[in-house]
C-alpha cells in the first residue's frame, strides 16, 4: 500500500515517526504551515519556520525515503494578531519556491474580520502564483464556518476545483461536495474523524476528490492514521485500487495542480555511517 499523507505537521514529530511511517507505506507527504501551539510574536518567527519547511524538514524526510512538500501561509488563528500579520507581505517570496505546492492552511478559526481579510488576501495570492489552496474548516461552529468560507472562495479568483476543504465531517460533507471543491478528512482522535466513520462516509460519497490525512501534530494524534484508513477500507470490501485512489492518486492530482509536485523520492545522500539525525546532539 503506497500512501501520501496530504496534511501532517512533521516538525512536531520524531524520527521514530518517520521510520514507522515509511514502514506503513507512506512515501510522500505535505506539511502545511500552521501555528505552533505557542503563539508567535513576530514575522521573523514565521520566516524561520517557513525556512525549516523548505530546508531541514525535507532533509529529515528524505533520510527515511519520504518526499516532503509544504504549503505556506499565515494561519487563521495568528491572522488575528497584529504582531504577526506583516508576514503576509513576505509570503510571495516563499510562494515561488519549488517545493511549495499550495497556499495553506488558511480559513477560519473564530470567524473575525481579521480572518476575513487574511483568507481573501491569501486566496488571491494562490491565484496569482498558480497554486491551489488548502482551506481548513474551523473547529468551532464548523457548518457556519464552512458557509462563510465558501462565500469568500466564490468571491475570489481561485476556482473551487483548486481548493481543498479540510477537516470535513458528516455534517459538512454535503455542502462541501456541492461547492465543487476537493474534500479533505482528518483522522484525529476525539475531535475529528475516525477510520470507521471514514469508511462509512466513503461508502456513501465514493472515492473521487476525497483526501484523507492524519493532521498529526504536537497534539494527541497518530501519524499512521492514513494507513489505518487503508486497512479499514480493505476490510470493508474496498479494492486495492480504491485505496490507491484515496490514499495516493487523489493527493497527487490535487497538489499536482501546482505543477511542482515531485513524488519520486530523492535517495538520501550516500553516508559512510549512520547520518546526522540518528547521531544527533551536535
Amino acid at each position, binding site marked *: 500500500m503506497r500512501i501520501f499523507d496530504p496534511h501532517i505537521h512533521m516538525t512536531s514529530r520524531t524520527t521514530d515517526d518517520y521510520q514507522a511511517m515509511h514502514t506503513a507505506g507512506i512515501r510522500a507527504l505535505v506539511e502545511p504551515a500552521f501555528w505552533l501551539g505557542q503563539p508567535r510574536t513576530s514575522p521573523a518567527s514565521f520566516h524561520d519556520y517557513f525556512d525549516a519547511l523548505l*530546508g*531541514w524538514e525535507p*532533509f529529515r524526510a528524505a533520510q527515511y525515503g519520504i518526499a516532503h512538500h509544504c504549503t505556506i501561509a499565515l494561519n487563521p488563528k495568528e491572522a488575528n494578531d497584529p504582531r504577526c500579520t506583516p508576514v503576509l507581505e513576505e509570503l510571495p517570496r516563499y510562494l*515561488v519556491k519549488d517545493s511549495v505546492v499550495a497556499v495553506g492552511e488558511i480559513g477560519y478559526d473564530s470567524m473575525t474580520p481579521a480572518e476575513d481579510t487574511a483568507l481573501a488576501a491569501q486566496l488571491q495570492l494562490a491565484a496569482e502564483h498558480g497554486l491551489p489552496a488548502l482551506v481548513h474548516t474551523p473547529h468551532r461552529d464548523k457548518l457556519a464556518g464552512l458557509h462563510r468560507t465558501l462565500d469568500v472562495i466564490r468571491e475570489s479568483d481561485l476556482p473551487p476545483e483548486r481548493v481543498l476543504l479540510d477537516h470535513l465531517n458528516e455534517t459538512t460533507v454535503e455542502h462541501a461536495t456541492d461547492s465543487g471543491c476537493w474534500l479533505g478528512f482528518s483522522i484525529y482522535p476525539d475531535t475529528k474523524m475516525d477510520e470507521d466513520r471514514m469508511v462509512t462516509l466513503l461508502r456513501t460519497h465514493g472515492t473521487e476528490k476525497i483526501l484523507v490525512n492524519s493532521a498529526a501534530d504536537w497534539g494527541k494524534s497518530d501519524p499512521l492514521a492514513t494507513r489505518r484508513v487503508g486497512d479499514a477500507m480493505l476490510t470493508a470490501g474496498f479494492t486495492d485500487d480504491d485505496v490507491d485512489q484515496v490514499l495516493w492518486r487523489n493527493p497527487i492530482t490535487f497538489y499536482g495542480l501546482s505543477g511542482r509536485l515531485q513524488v519520486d523520492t530523492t535517495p538520501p*545522500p550516500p553516508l*559512510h555511517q549512520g547520518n546526522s539525525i540518528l547521531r544527533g546532539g551536535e
Partner: protein
Amino acid sequence: MLTPRTELDTRLDATARTWLDHALTEATTRQPAWETRFATAGRHCGRHNADPVRALLLTAARPDPPTLTRLYHHGSAAERRALLLALPHLDSLTPPTAALPLVEDALRTNDTRLIAAALGPYAAQHLDAHSWRHAILKCLFTGVPLDTVADLEHRARGDRELARMLTDYTAERTAAGRTTPPDLTRVQTLTGEPPKET
C-alpha cells in the same frame, strides 16, 4: 566545475532551453526577475539540472556580496546548496572572502547536502584553520565522505592540531565501543605526512 551552457542544452527540452535563455538575459542585465528564476529553476529545468542552471544564473548576474547573502538567506536548501557550489566561480566578490559567513552558516547546519556543498574549493582557499578542522570533524560525525572536501590532502598534511583532534575523536569512539570510520584513518594518516610545497 561549471557546466557549460552547451552541455546543459543537451539535457533540456525546448521549453526549458527557452526559459533558460530568458533567465540568463534577465540575470546578465540584472532585472529583478532573475532572482525568481533562480528560485524556480528546479521545476522549469528539472530538479537534476537545478544546480548547474543556478550556477549559470549566478555567474551571469555576478551579484555583489549583499545580494548574494540575501539570496542565500532567502533560499530553500536546494538554492543554498547551488549557491555554495557556485562560489568558486563567482569573480564578483569584493573582498573575495565576502561569502565566508555563508560557508560558516552551512557548516553550522546538520544538513549533509549543505555541509558537503560548503567544503568546495572556496572553503579550501578561504576558511581559517580552526573552522576547517571542525568542518573535517563534522564530516566524520555526520557521514559526509571526505572525498567531497576540496584540497583535503593539501590542507591536512602536517596539521598537528587536526591530528590531535582526530586522535581524541578516535579515543572517544573506541571508549564507546564504536568502530573508527575509514575516512578518519585516512585523514589521520595525511596529518602525519609533511606538507607539500605549493
